[in-house]
């Protein structure tokens, strides 16, 4: 490891730590600025109608103690950090006494199983289409460009809703919501698995379709940019075969697309929010949606913290990988 390299990594790690701390602090402070006391609403829900003033007060003190809200702000922050590091994230307000980690643990796998394959498939197909569109421009520009521009303007939630209405409601090819038939007990049997697969199709293809659009447009313009670059012209003058040039062009055009892939894997949970709420898919997005609507701040904080940390890790990994695969970064940073 050269001196420049060490300096580069030190700088990156320093930034990683600083932003990580900032993210944790923001996740702690913002929910505590909200108006209204969460404890009052829980006590209001749980207490019997004939309770005396003292009983109510007792309940409030009890819950305040349970949530650690009777400590001062630094004590609360310490609890928050401790809970974040031991992975429990504290106790949920709306589903008391369930642990936040329990809520998240039961939903995050649905999100990962739905999003990861969908993002990968969408990325692959989108880049293939984009590269093809850049290479065979005359056909694409005339026939498909205006259409693609319009369809890529449809927001993700709009596309999901249209797919849902066409394929689930009107044609009845796929179930309308959920991840498996209601009333089924999750287990490793054929009936359950087939139900999961049937429910999987629509959210999966809607995410694939949406990411194909974005990736294809990006890949096309990157490839066109590279195809017009000086090195391509020079290579042509030298008489290098087209096939070989194309390989170089697409390899260069791929670099920003790799960034795109890493970032969309990192922001997977955030990206899942809308699709999951539309298809009522029981992933992390849906948990977060439920938490937002019931003002369950520990769950919201935990979800946003997870999203932030995943994005942070993704961009950190990218910086590291780039340092090895992109000679331009290498030259700029290491010397």
């Amino acid at each position, binding site marked *: 490891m050269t001196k420049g390299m060490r300096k580069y990594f030190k700088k990156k790690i320093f930034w990683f730590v600083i932003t990580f701390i900032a993210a944790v602090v*923001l996740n702690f402070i913002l929910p505590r600025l909200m108006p*209204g006391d969460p404890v009052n609403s829980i006590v209001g829900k749980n207490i019997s109608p004939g309770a005396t003033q003292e009983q109510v007060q007792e309940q409030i003190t009890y819950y305040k103690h349970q949530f650690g809200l009777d400590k001062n702000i630094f004590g609360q922050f310490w609890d928050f950090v401790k809970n974040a590091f031991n992975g429990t994230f504290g106790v949920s307000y709306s589903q008391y006494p369930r642990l936040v980690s329990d809520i998240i643990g039961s939903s995050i796998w649905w999100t990962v199983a739905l999003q990861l394959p969908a993002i990968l498939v969408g990325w692959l197909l989108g880049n293939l289409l984009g590269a093809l569109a850049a290479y065979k421009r005359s056909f694409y520009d005339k026939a498909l460009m205006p259409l693609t521009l319009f369809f890529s*303007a449809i927001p993700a939630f*709009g596309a999901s*809703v249209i797919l849902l209405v066409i394929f689930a409601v009107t044609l009845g090819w796929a179930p309308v919501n959920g991840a498996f038939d209601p009333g089924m007990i999750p287990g490793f049997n054929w009936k359950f698995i087939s139900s999961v697969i049937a429910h999987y199709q629509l959210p999966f293809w809607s995410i694939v379709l949406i990411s194909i659009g974005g990736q294809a447009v990006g890949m096309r*313009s990157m490839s066109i940019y590279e195809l017009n670059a000086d090195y391509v012209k020079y290579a042509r003058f030298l008489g290098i075969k087209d096939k070989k040039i194309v390989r170089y062009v697409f390899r260069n055009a791929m670099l920003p697309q790799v960034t795109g892939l890493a970032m969309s894997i990192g922001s997977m949970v955030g990206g899942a*929010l*809308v699709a999951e709420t539309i298809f009522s898919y029981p992933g992390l997005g849906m948990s977060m949606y439920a938490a937002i609507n019931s003002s369950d701040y520990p769950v919201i904080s935990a979800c946003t913290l997870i999203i932030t940390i995943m994005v942070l890790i993704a961009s950190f990994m990218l910086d590291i990988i780039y340092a090895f695969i992109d000679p331009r970064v290498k030259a700029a940073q290491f010397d």
Partner: protein
Amino acid sequence: MKNTLKNVFHSPRFLVGFIIFMCILLTVLIYPYFVHRDPLQGLGKGFLAPGTYVSVYDTNNTGTYRVELPEANDNRLEASVPVKDRQTMLDFLKAKGTDITGLDTSNEHFHELIEVWRANYDEADAKKNKYEGFATQAKRNELRRLNNRLSSDVNAAMTVTKGEGDDATTAAVATSDYVKVDEVANALTLPLGTDNFGRDTLTELVKATGISLLVGLLAGSIATFIGLAVGLLAGYVGGVVDDVLMFIANIFTVIPGFVLLILIYSALGAESRSITTCAVIIGITSWVWTARSVRSQVISLRNRDHVNLSKLSGHSLIRIVATDILPYIMSYVVMAFILQVSSGILAEAQLSMLGLGPNPNELPTLGLMMNWAKLFGAYTSSNAWWAYFPVILVIALISFSLNLMNTGLDQVFNPTLRD
């Protein structure tokens, strides 16, 4: 300046985008002069399909006209048996094993369907054989009622009674009596029906489009302004200022803007989220990319000869920035602004769909309309396409037109992309 504008408007992409955007904007501005309805006023109960609604009560007090429509009888018969019932008829015939090739639920084949039905349906037979899917008593009763409706005379006599007690007068209504829609005291045309609250969807949509555009413009202006200011300062002044500003920008880049929005919005609570607050918050969480690009462009401009000359002439910082630097990055800033507007509108819509939108009792926005459509089952149970599809279309058209304008500008200002 004049030449640049001419160039810009010669770009077909920009022009098309500009025209679409202006059409949307003009509709938003002019529509209230023609329809004076409050966009949040409930007119009906629940989803009403698009169409013209005529008061049954008032049709009695208008003049009647004699019109002989040759297909009146057929139309009446067709209207009395909706597609759902025709499907039931087909299902029964199929269950009975009748040949139903060439038959469907369309109006063209309706008469053939009725003939086949009359030849094949018999109540006693249906009871005895218990055909598949029609084995229960309830299903058989449904068939019987359907058959009664088909065999009864659709032109049965009808009378209208006016007044009460001794003053009551009765008049016969002939099958050839018609009323003129403009003469009916209360008739209402709803081109896009009503939403779950019974609000006129079109009026609501126009208002919501206006508000969403406003949110986008405000958020975009704030983001562009902060981004420009930070970028100029960091890039031109450099040194410690640059370090501090880029430190803040770095934090904002890595923590996803959407997460910040969700945290701030949920911290605010629904009541204190006004339209303006929402727009301001979207603006102050999305300036980072503009700031970064402006900064890098300013750094490359900072040491150009004309800037150095300006410095030597003793011009103030503000003057140098305004006359020697801004003109060079203006095209980029305009493009960034257009993209910020479009993403501001989308951000509002997405937040509203998560239930974090502006206060729903004040004004409608496109996102709130999508959220209501979802909450009240417009796309599943009610199947009310008019409550969400036009909203999606408007959002798509707005971002489509803004994207077109942006790529058009890009082609004009970056000639390398032009071919």
